[in-house]
């Protein structure tokens, strides 16, 4: 009988199984992240031969002093701070309605989920058409109601609100599904106990259901916040590859993209990308902190 060759160490065996996936991640994720981090420090280098002659903090200083980066940061932050809570509150309202056993529940659930599975590019193209000043459906609808046309896509004041509405609508389905799952996990007995304790439906939601949903809401907040800071496709497609009128739609990722592809300033782009990474890392750590504290109590 042939003896089978076997690796005794289970740790090592597990590592071998994980190796294919790990190597893909290493090549396409870890390496670029590290490389862009290091590239942020290159001040003098040869692009073709990859020889670095001098390193320093110049790129980071340049980015931090660049008024365009400041604008991108401001736009992104405003967008994130409004769209994230708004998205979650809207989703929560719909999830609570859907959870109350209304008719056609399954239909509504799929209807809300549809935007989420549609590609952002397709959605942005459609929105661009709908918001067109002269031929768009939105203005057509407004004129039926006797209201004047609005220059949705060319008015700088409109850019961030439109992006917020788009992101809330796009993310609604996913958030509803997550919240609905959490709501269905809320034990019926707490609701019953709440009723016997004299709490009407609104107060039951505030005092009993929402606190129980807290971990889910926290999770959604952090993931959507991270997503919000990465906003790019919407702007790029909807505004014809421009950062909106008067740069009103200039976001951090757009800034990075612009520096990298349009200006070939790889090192500046890398430095900006690393700063974005720090912002996201901060929120991720915040989530860890909150959830671990919760587990303790």
């Amino acid at each position, binding site marked *: 009988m042939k003896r089978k060759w076997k690796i005794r160490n289970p740790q090592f065996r597990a590592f071998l199984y994980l190796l294919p996936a790990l190597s893909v991640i290493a090549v396409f994720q870890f390496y670029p992240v590290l490389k862009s981090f290091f590239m942020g420090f290159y001040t003098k280098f040869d692009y073709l031969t990859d020889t670095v002659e001098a390193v320093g903090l110049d790129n980071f200083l340049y980015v931090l002093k660049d008024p365009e980066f400041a604008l991108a940061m401001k736009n992104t932050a405003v967008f994130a701070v409004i769209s994230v809570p708004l998205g979650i509150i809207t989703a929560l309202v719909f999830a609570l309605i859907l959870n109350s056993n209304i008719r056609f529940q399954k239909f509504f659930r799929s209807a809300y989920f549809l935007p989420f599975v549609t590609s952002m590019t397709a959605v942005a193209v459609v929105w661009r058409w709908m918001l067109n000043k002269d031929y768009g459906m939105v203005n057509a609808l407004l004129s039926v109601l006797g209201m004047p046309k609005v220059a949705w896509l060319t008015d700088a004041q409109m850019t961030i609100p439109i992006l917020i509405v788009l992101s809330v609508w796009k993310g609604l389905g996913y958030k509803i599904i997550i919240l609905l799952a959490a709501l269905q996990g809320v*034990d019926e*007995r*707490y609701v*019953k*106990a709440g*009723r*016997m*304790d*004299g*709490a*009407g439906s609104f*107060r039951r939601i505030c*005092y*009993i259901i929402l*606190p*129980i949903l*807290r971990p889910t809401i926290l999770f959604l907040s952090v993931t959507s916040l991270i997503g919000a800071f990465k906003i790019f496709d919407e702007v790029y497609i909807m505004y014809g590859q421009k950062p909106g009128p008067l740069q009103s739609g200039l976001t951090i990722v757009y800034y990075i993209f612009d520096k990298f592809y349009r200006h070939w300033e790889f090192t500046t782009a890398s430095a900006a990308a690393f700063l974005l990474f720090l912002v996201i890392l901060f929120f991720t750590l915040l989530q860890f902190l909150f959830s671990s504290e919760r587990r303790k*109590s």
Partner: protein
Amino acid sequence: MRIRLENLTKRYQEVTAVDHLNLEIEDGDLVCLLGPSGCGKSTTLSIIAGLEQATEGAIYFDEENVGGLEAEERDIGMVFQDYALYPHMTVQENMAFPLKMQGWKKKDRIEKVKEAAKMLQIEEYLKRKPGKLSGGQQQRVAIARAIVKNPKILLLDEPLSNLDARLRIELRDEIRRVQKQLGITTIFVTHDQEEALSISDKILLMEKGKISQYSSPKEMYMEPQNVFAAKFLGNPPMNFVPGEKVEDGISLLLGDENMTVKKGTIHEAGELKGSVCVGIRPEALELCSTEEEEAISGVITGIQTLGKDMYIHFRAGEQMLTACVGWEKTFSEGERVSFRVKRLHLFPWEDDR
């Protein structure tokens, strides 16, 4: 507060869970809803609580019809089987919650909570979260939360079923004490006959959504009105033997040898003639000498020793019977024994008994 149910009926698609229930509960009484699972006792409680709507019938608290009131408006305290304490609140917050909903000021809430906590001896846990408490402690908190707002009615839905035996006895005495102290009308749902017998003023025994018997525990045990009530109460269960009413007593049809009993107390469920179903509680069988007349004698088929008593299973003619005896004598299987019948119950003859 008095509770009156009138023709209360609850139908689910095909099942009738509660079937034209009529019931009156006196102010300050503790009534147990007792019955096997699926008899409709929990549904009845849910309807009284307002958590479920009755298909038909009416519920009155004193003279007020509360059918149109939501659960949150009925001023009822309720304790659930699985405690249902809010996991995100401390014990104190849990107990203060009903008061908060009634709009009490924070200072008064804390005072009232302390009072209730003292009554149930849970003062030391006030700052803890429910997850850190044992089952018994959690149920104490749940009881305290139910009574803290001084409701007029207290409902308990199998509150002791998740606890171990020793704790169950401790807490049921506690519930009785608190209930007496507050003089609160209480309905207690249980499937445990011992629990029901030990704490109730009255027991409502239910079978398939209907009332089987509604009486005091003593009456229910000593004078069961039907075979179901007789079977459901008592441990070990009552013996049943076919019988016949004859002129000078009751003839027990044991198979090859019949036996007529003239002595002993006879309790009849209704006016009976001819064929009857005779019920004998195991503790109504008293050991006697084999020569004695009017004794049931048989051969021991099994012996079970249980705490203070010993159960003897024996065959008399074609009937298998159980008797409950003390420890004084030693028995062995195959031995012949005789028993005097102290008390028997007569029920109408049913073929499927």
